[in-house]
């Protein structure tokens, strides 16, 4: 980065350290923090959508749909999330390639599953092995987002379902009395009011989501954990910046990063709760009304 860093072996002390901290590999480490932030930014709305869909399905009058919704929101309670993270991306990937296989290679007669093998034709591979690396990275990241969204969508579904149930019955009855259809009452009365009941659960979920991001490492994404291990490890003279095992310091940085993330979120959520409570028929809303705000 700096000209003075051209020959790191001659450097010492602070200037060595400065060059080390701005080396390309370190920049990749810093960049991986943004990968975590992007994952959070992308996953949160997707998971919310999954959760909303799950809650709507659970409320459905059609029995099988309702079972599906309830089963989906119950699923993550019994099974560790890490099992889903190991399972969902592979299952998604195989399902996708199987569908592509059926479309692109209809003349193929051999079974796709042979014992433990999973065999599809070359053209069905996704992304194609000839695609540039960026597509492979994006694909891997997308699978990770889906895995996160499936797991956290299930949590969100149970939170949102509970929140929908918590909307006072009288509100819905009033809507019916005004002649609203079920659909209108749902979208105009229930959904806007539900958020204040869902917020404690959802904000808690957001905290959990933050704390689950290191699992990206298990999905093979080069995230903060990957680079902390890679850059922190013992470096021989083959490297420009040889150094002993510094992983413990790298992980301390990660710890501080996550503590700041959760603390910051807590502060922001606290403000949001205050705003959302405004004008609501809840204890908090009543307190704000009394205080004249």
């Amino acid at each position, binding site marked *: 980065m700096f000209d003075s860093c051209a020959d790191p072996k001659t450097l010492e002390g602070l200037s060595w350290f400065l060059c080390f901290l701005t080396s390309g590999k370190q920049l990749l480490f810093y960049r991986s923090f943004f990968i975590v932030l992007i994952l959070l930014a992308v996953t949160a709305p997707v998971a919310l959508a999954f959760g909303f869909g799950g809650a709507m399905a659970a409320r459905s009058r059609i029995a099988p749909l309702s079972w599906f919704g309830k089963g989906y929101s119950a699923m993550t309670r019994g099974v560790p999330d890490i099992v889903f993270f190991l399972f969902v991306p592979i299952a998604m990937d195989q399902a996708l390639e199987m569908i592509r296989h059926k479309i692109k290679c209809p003349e193929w007669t051999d079974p796709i599953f042979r014992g433990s*093998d999973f*065999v599809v034709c070359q053209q069905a591979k996704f992304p*194609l092995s000839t695609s540039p*690396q960026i597509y492979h990275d994006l694909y891997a990241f997308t699978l990770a987002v889906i895995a996160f969204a499936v797991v956290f969508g299930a949590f969100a579904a149970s939170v949102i379902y509970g929140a929908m149930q918590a909307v006072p019955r009288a509100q819905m009855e009033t809507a019916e009395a005004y002649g609203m259809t079920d659909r209108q009452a749902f979208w105009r009365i229930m959904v806007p009011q539900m958020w204040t009941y869902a917020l404690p659960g959802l904000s808690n979920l957001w905290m959990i989501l933050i704390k689950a991001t290191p699992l990206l490492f298990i999905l093979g994404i080069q995230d903060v954990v990957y680079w902390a291990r890679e850059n922190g*490890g013992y470096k*021989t003279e*083959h490297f420009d910046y040889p150094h002993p095992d510094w992983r413990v310091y790298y992980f301390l940085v990660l710890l501080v990063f996550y503590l700041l993330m959760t603390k910051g979120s807590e502060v922001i959520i606290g403000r949001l709760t205050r705003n959302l409570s405004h004008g609501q028929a809840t204890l908090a809303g009543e307190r704000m009304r009394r205080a004249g705000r």
Partner: protein
Amino acid sequence: MKKLILSTAIVALTAGVSLAQDVVRMGTEGAYPPSNFINDKGEVDGFERELGDELCKRAELKCEWVVNEWDSIIPNLVSGNYDTIIAAMSITDERKEVIDFSEAYQPATPSVFVAKSADADIKGGVIAAQTSTIQSGYVAEQGMTLAEYATGDETIAAVRNGEADAVFADGEYLAPIVAESNGELMVVGEPVPLGGGVGIGMRKSDAELRAKFDAAITSMKDDGSLNAMIVKWFGENATTW
């Protein structure tokens, strides 16, 4: 992707039908210096990077480097995430059942034990080895106490901080680490010959690609440039052809 363990898709495409291979994706671990590592610029570097680029030049291929964790490196090859494994992978019969190998580009080197003291207890002590390597398989089969780590670097760290009594790994990998340690680490016990040399792993269906790499490796062996490259990265005492 580390855990995208997808398939052993041995694609039985009829001979002659092959995709236009514009880009050959070279899969490596990037954590096994000097064979392959991520340098301080964040790029793949090392003996295999230089060798791979030279082979691709000779075979007139355009190559792209991909980093993948060691323990899922074979599954991700067969599932098509990249086209070759060039990651100091020894040719073994067990691996040959799943993938094909090019001609060896590095001769078989014995694996050695490295410990902090000359009288380290190899038979009864804890031996660190990288997961799913021929070395970890050997340690488990011999009934020694195996401690598994995900990367080679962690196995060395385990010996340095006393977690393990010795590390068992490829001699060429351990040699520079021992040399740099100023006597802290030393080779102990007898070297064990394992594996049949180091080759490029490829899908069984990629016979054409294999032929190209075989030809390129042979030409590098013939003009002596391969030996020169081995000496450059592994030192004067390295095993050459």
